């Protein structure tokens, strides 16, 4: 068996090496008896049942599986779970507290930084790694920091805005008003009620002056 959490096949278990790992995940200590070949992404998802961490590729490109290991972003599909033994892991489920969303989460919602939501947990974890180091990033710095995460839906522009929104909020400033058209509807769900930008800015888009790609 690859992991603890499904019925053991007696025959398989005998000759296969398994190791105990102790991981502090989202602040909680957890242990598992696992095969060394188990990828961290699979321990998180199937073992710890934290399914916010997604897998979206086979070649370490998409970043949907991004988590923080001791504060640094890693693609959890490309780390063996045994390697996390004794380390601290933060997943998307560790961003919010019971009562409060993280500003990055608020920013993603407010700026429409997600559509299907599949890349979102990984994006937010990369954003967190960036903002933990630099609370005042430029648009280019945000684009650069997120360039290990693929999104097929949004075209990134709103993701970038979401991160800048969060940065402003974390700096204690009023979140910028460049964002998506203002939401004047009164139906914010109570525990989510992020401060809404008052009105839609007339600037077409913040990315107007962004440099194009590097080819």
């Amino acid at each position: 068996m690859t992991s603890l959490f499904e019925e053991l096949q007696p025959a398989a278990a005998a000759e296969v090496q398994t190791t105990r790992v102790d991981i502090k995940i989202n602040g909680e200590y957890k242990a598992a008896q696992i095969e060394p070949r188990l990828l961290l992404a699979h321990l998180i998802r199937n073992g710890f049942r934290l399914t916010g961490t997604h897998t979206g590729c086979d070649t370490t490109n998409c970043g949907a599986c991004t988590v923080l290991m001791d504060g640094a972003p890693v693609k959890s599909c490309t780390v063996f779970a045994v390697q996390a033994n004794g380390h601290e892991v933060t997943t998307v489920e560790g961003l919010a507290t019971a009562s409060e969303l993280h500003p990055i989460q608020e920013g993603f919602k407010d700026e429409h930084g997600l559509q299907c939501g599949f890349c979102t947990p990984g994006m937010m974890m990369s954003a967190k790694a960036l903002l933990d180091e630099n609370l005042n990033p430029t648009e280019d710095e945000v684009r650069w920091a997120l360039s290990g995460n693929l999104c097929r839906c949004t075209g990134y522009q709103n993701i970038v805005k979401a991160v800048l929104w969060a940065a402003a909020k974390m700096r204690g400033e009023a979140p910028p008003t460049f964002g998506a058209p203002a939401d004047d509807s009164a139906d914010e769900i109570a525990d989510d009620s992020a401060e809404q930008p008052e009105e839609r800015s007339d600037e077409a888009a913040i990315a107007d002056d962004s440099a194009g790609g590097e080819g």
Partner: protein
Amino acid sequence: MFPSRFRYEAPTSIEEAIALLGANEDAKVLAGGQSLIPMMKLRFANPALLVDINNIPDMGYHRADADGSFRIGALCRHADLEKSTILREHQPLLAAAAPLVADPIVRSRGTFVGSVCHADPQGDWAACMVALGGSIIAQGPNGKRAVEVKDFVSGPFTTVLARDEIAIEGVVPSAQGTRTGGYLKLERRVGDFATAAVAVSLDMSGGVVKNAGIGLVGVGAQTIDASEAAAALIGSSLDDDAVDRAAELAAAASNPRGDHRGSADYKRHIISTFVTRIIANVQRSEMQVA
């Protein structure tokens, strides 16, 4: 997505790790894992034992030594180098290449030394080391030895490391004058391996090139040391003739294959264009400093 079975050891000393490698036929060192694990997930690599060196203390360093050499430990990550101010101060070529290796998340785990050991013809760091005349320090049961990176890489994905040797550090020799240089990489998007890339290192003194090295990426079965091209620059003041000659020789030293990224001719052309551009950029920034 699902590697085959292997045994796993995580020794806490180099000696222990070397012993494990020596005692097991089909063992592999696991460093950052950003090349090895992807290959294992696709089952292109199926080692019987992984010797994880991440628990060995004191290997994450990079530093400029008093003798002018620059040392990078086996667990120094790409991201450490990307963020490093001493690297920018002492090793402009490495500083230029650091942000272009892989993507930001891969960089936070992958190691400089592991990249050189991986000996991917499209790897960025080995070419930089070739241009700088750098070496790898390998440690085995009988002690340490230094191997110049141009000799260290012996073919695509192969090195001269013995089965029971570990690369413990990369060493860049001291500069003969002021070190400058640059790195240009043609990639189709972030996280792409190079279609072609060029590393140029120049040690300058009084406007004259004292020492030079050029490493080429993605244009042959292994990292290419364009030493003749570099020789064309040594002793020159980077005049147009010398630069053109170096660009031409670098293109001639490359041996690319045409594929969906471009024809052989195109890649050769990129090599010469990048040699010229890097040197022009160097001259432009010198002028700004002056």
